[in-house]
């Protein structure tokens, strides 16, 4: 015990212990994985019974997107989890023990970010892959399937998991900024779902060029196989914009955690 001191690595370890030791957290992670796989397979089965009839419909049919439908709903599970990882500590008062143990504070935020991202990625990337494979094997009944090697497909699968990681981190940042579960969840889903609707009220040209820079728009660019150049960023552009959002949100959260009384 002579070498006792706070290190970033040990704080990450501690935050991982917290994530894995609350049953509700584990359940929401498993729910996310189950949604990704289950819903993807289910939607693929539905589309097999209603295959595209016209050549245009067939050309527009995106088998990858069909099999990854579940990832869009997993956004809720992962987003709420991200918020709760911070706000549950404020709601229960655990935060004071945590910050007394790590009085420099910022290692706690980074520790939570790493533990949450790693858990999300480790669970959601295989889930997305399984959803894709299951979905394609279902779609193959009508020869609607594609392969991982096709252009953009592998990136879209990995991108779906990456988008979930980004949503979790945004939730974490909103939770740390607002310190309230209700406010954090409201703000996160407001940004992800209400903002695009509000932007839709802008004149058409403006709406398109603004919407693609929103977190949801950047996520769409990252997760679709062939982003529409007119209304969406390139996949790399989407990744960069999304990363910027996460970085700014976490920086604000860090500033607030550092300077506000606990």
């Amino acid at each position, binding site marked *: 015990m002579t*070498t*006792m001191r*706070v290190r970033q690595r*040990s704080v990450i370890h501690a935050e991982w212990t917290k994530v894995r030791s609350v049953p509700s957290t584990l359940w929401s992670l498993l729910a996310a994985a189950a949604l990704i796989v289950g819903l993807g397979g289910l939607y693929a089965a539905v589309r097999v019974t209603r295959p595209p009839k016209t050549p245009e419909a067939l050309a527009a049919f995106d088998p990858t997107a069909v099999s990854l439908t579940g990832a869009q709903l997993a956004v809720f599970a992962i987003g709420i989890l991200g918020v709760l990882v911070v706000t549950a500590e404020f709601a229960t008062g655990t935060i004071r023990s945590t910050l*007394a143990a790590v*009085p420099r504070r910022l290692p706690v935020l980074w520790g939570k970010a790493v533990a949450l991202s790693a858990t999300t990625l480790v669970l959601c990337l295989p889930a997305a892959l399984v959803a894709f494979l299951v979905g394609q094997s279902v779609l193959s009944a009508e020869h609607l399937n594609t392969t991982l090697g096709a252009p953009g497909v592998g990136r879209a699968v990995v991108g779906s998991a990456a988008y979930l990681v980004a949503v979790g981190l945004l939730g974490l940042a909103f939770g740390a900024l607002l310190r309230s579960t209700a406010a954090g969840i409201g703000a996160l889903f407001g940004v992800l779902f209400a903002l695009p609707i509000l932007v839709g009220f802008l004149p058409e040209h403006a709406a398109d060029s603004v919407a693609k820079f929103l977190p949801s728009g950047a996520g769409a660019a990252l997760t679709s196989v062939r982003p529409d150049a007119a209304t969406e960023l390139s996949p790399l552009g989407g990744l960069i914009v999304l990363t910027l959002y996460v970085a700014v949100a976490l920086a604000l959260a860090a500033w607030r955690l550092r300077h506000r009384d606990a």
Partner: protein
Amino acid sequence: MIEVRGLTKRYGGTLAVDDLSFTVRPGIVTGFLGPNGAGKSTTMRLILGLDAPTSGTALVNGRPYAQHTAPLREAGALLEARSFHPGRSAYHHLLALAQTCGIGRDRVEAVIEAVGLAGVARKRAGAFSLGMGQRLGIATALLGDPRTVILDEPVNGLDTEGIRWMRGLLADLAAQGRTVFVSSHLLSELAMTAQHVIVIGRGRLIADLPVADLIAGAGSTGVRVRSTEPDALATLLRQRGAQVTRASDGALEIRGWTTDQVGPVAAAAGLTLLELSARQASLEDAFLDLTRDAVDFRAPATSGGNR
């Protein structure tokens, strides 16, 4: 060792802690006493760097708490009851805190054993009673084997056996040479455990003295006397400079006088006495005297009322 110098904390327009200075020494139990809302918890949060002071400093073992490389080794704290996630077990709550600075699992098991939670440590802490939650808080405070222990109202929610255990624990920690700083709004509790008290009210320092001195001060006596002619007796005593007050049952109370002084005055005037007794002020009275002007929300005085 805790050194507080000119510590001030303002929340909006309210001064929660007002230019507080005191030192808490190792090797004894120091009580931190004050009415509810006096600023005790805020002061403790300031010492631990959880809140930033408006001005002034608080040092723990010679440095601001946040600047220690192994903070849990320097100070362990119980700040409020039930500050743990209800879905997590006591074991994992402690393990996560321990892991922040490389404290081993054996130490986690040891503190669980020490506070008597071994049987329930793996169960959801949400099912804990107030007393069990308090024990988990104590375990958290002891986790890093700290040189300074800071406990906010530690006996809250403990049963009689728990309170006795707590007294023993505090005495042991002090005997091991640690700095032990314990808040309470109950003087009687601290009188049994602490050797020194720091009394605050409305965020200000009211007293900083050995418990023995406080008790000696509280021993200042008064006289209670009943007479068939209380008004005449009161007049006589006042003429001799006594402070006389009337008790609800008609008896007279004379602060600072002895029965030896009151008796002859009555005899000289030929007044019949029905009762003449020495009155020992209690510790509680001493505390109330000290904090009288510093209580924010005092209930209207009622006979026998206590809060």
